[in-house]
């Protein structure tokens, strides 16, 4: 029997994997993919809460639709920034895009 806890733990694991990816990845594209994993973990949590704890409403499901939209829009903007970045820096390695510090 799969309970709420299973879904929440899976969601939390996905979110942790995503943040780990944000930290260790050097490629900006890799970080973007990690971000998508985080959003998916959050989506899973929201749907699980809706199904198990609050089945009388649909807020959790509406949330997921909005989150997917927001994530897609963010990806579009990030890719636009990265294309321009690549034209100028000839790399999307975030360690090398470091003109400003302290």
């Amino acid at each position, binding site marked *: 029997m799969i309970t709420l806890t299973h879904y929440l733990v899976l969601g939390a694991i996905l979110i942790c994997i995503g943040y780990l990816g944000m930290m260790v990845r050097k490629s900006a594209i890799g970080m973007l993919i990690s971000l998508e994993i985080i959003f998916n973990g959050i989506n899973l949590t929201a749907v699980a809460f809706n199904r198990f*704890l609050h089945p009388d409403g649909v807020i959790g499901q509406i949330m997921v639709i909005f989150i997917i939209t927001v994530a897609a*829009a963010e990806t579009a903007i990030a890719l636009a920034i990265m294309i321009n970045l690549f*034209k100028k820096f000839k790399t999307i390695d975030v360690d090398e895009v470091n003109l400003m510090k302290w």
Partner: protein
Amino acid sequence: MDFFIAPEFLTALLALFVLCSDFFLKEKKEHIVPAITVSGAMLILTVSFAFPFIGESSLLNSLFNGFETSLGKFATYSNDYLSLFGSRLLLVSLVLTTLLSWDYIQKRTKKITEFYALLIFATCGLMFMVSAQELLTFFVSLETASMCLYALSAYFTDNKYSLEAGLKYFLLGASFSALMLYGIVLVYGACGTTNYAQIATVISTIGESGNTNFLYAGVVLICIGFAFKLSLAPFHMWAPDVLQGAPTPISAFLSVSSKAAGFMVLIRLTSVAFTQMNPVWVKFFLICAIVSMIFGNLIAVWQTNMKRLMAYSSIGQVSYLVMGIIATNDVGTSALLYFLVSYVFTTLSIFIVIACVSKHDGDDMADFYGLSKRSPFVAMVATIGILSLCGIPPMSGFFAKFYVFAAAIKSKYFTLVFFALIATTVSLFYYLNVLRAMYIDGDESHNTPLEVANSSKVGMWLCLIGMMYFGIFPQQLVTFCNQVAVSL
């Protein structure tokens, strides 16, 4: 008809209008588009003063009140005193930012229309964020504004610094938004609703059931998200880099409008939704405030880039602002609102000066040498702005700090006020350093008279009037702030 006088909708219409104007304008775009933006924003401001719109409109009710929980239907969005205050403040800041951009953008890029359209869309998102009555609407409007600002930070695509600022802002901003979103989902899981008033009802009856863990975790995550957006230390690392690299108008917008809106939402959350959770968030913001007082003001001492210095200075200012939240009383809220008005005029006055003075590719403090000779008027504006930031009467900055400190003392946070006073003293050092730079003579290259565009002059005058008027005659504004604080 009430639908049409809600300032948020008028602003959205203005943004669309500006965006479409690109198709019809053939020449002189660089003057017509900002002129439309300024006059449109002024018009909306006038409408908001002439017909203040309070309450829920019938059309909006049918459109936006679809959400239903076991506690009943709720509004996702409504106009109350706080959102009236917020939309006016954000419109003023939009007008000033546009005046600041007018000359600056025209000299540096050909892409004019999109810049202003994105700026208005960002303002619109922030206004919706202040009016939102539930967490999901709040999050979506926050993202609307953030996404415009990611694009605007990287707007100068041939400038490496701007691109780097855009990338850093996006990566950090998106990951902290995700953290805040997780917090929102956890609060939803614990309460079964996202409406602020309903959350408060649920929290007061939740007792000691297992769901409180989700609630605590959710509130902490939402607080971390806010600390990031308001650039409170230890979540401030993005601010200096982004504010230095981004175009100056966007640095100004990021450190003024987006912070002002963030604070207004924070007021709503802490005084409506999470009132009962105050042990959690008071402790969190107390630590953040003290750390940012120390960090912001100490690191600013070593800065030589003006925009970076302003970033650290705004970390310091935000730590005083957040004292109004920590105080958890009506006096604190009212003081915070007054401080926000003062902060908008003061900070923008200095950013307008930076935009006028800086050379094409940097904003080094060396550009300020001999400014008092090159343009006495600009030097005077910068001096008054900096004295207001220091908190010297009769500028509004003094009364702002005074009210906030008084509110904190009223709630018996003596240690916090003690730290704040020390931080204010340290901050005098680097603020006066900027003054020193303006009044010492530079070499030959610094002695040519400075040409200041008319738009920037108007902007400077407006900031001056704002700073002096609200400093000398604060009564009217304080009454309005009290009204807003009590209405929550």
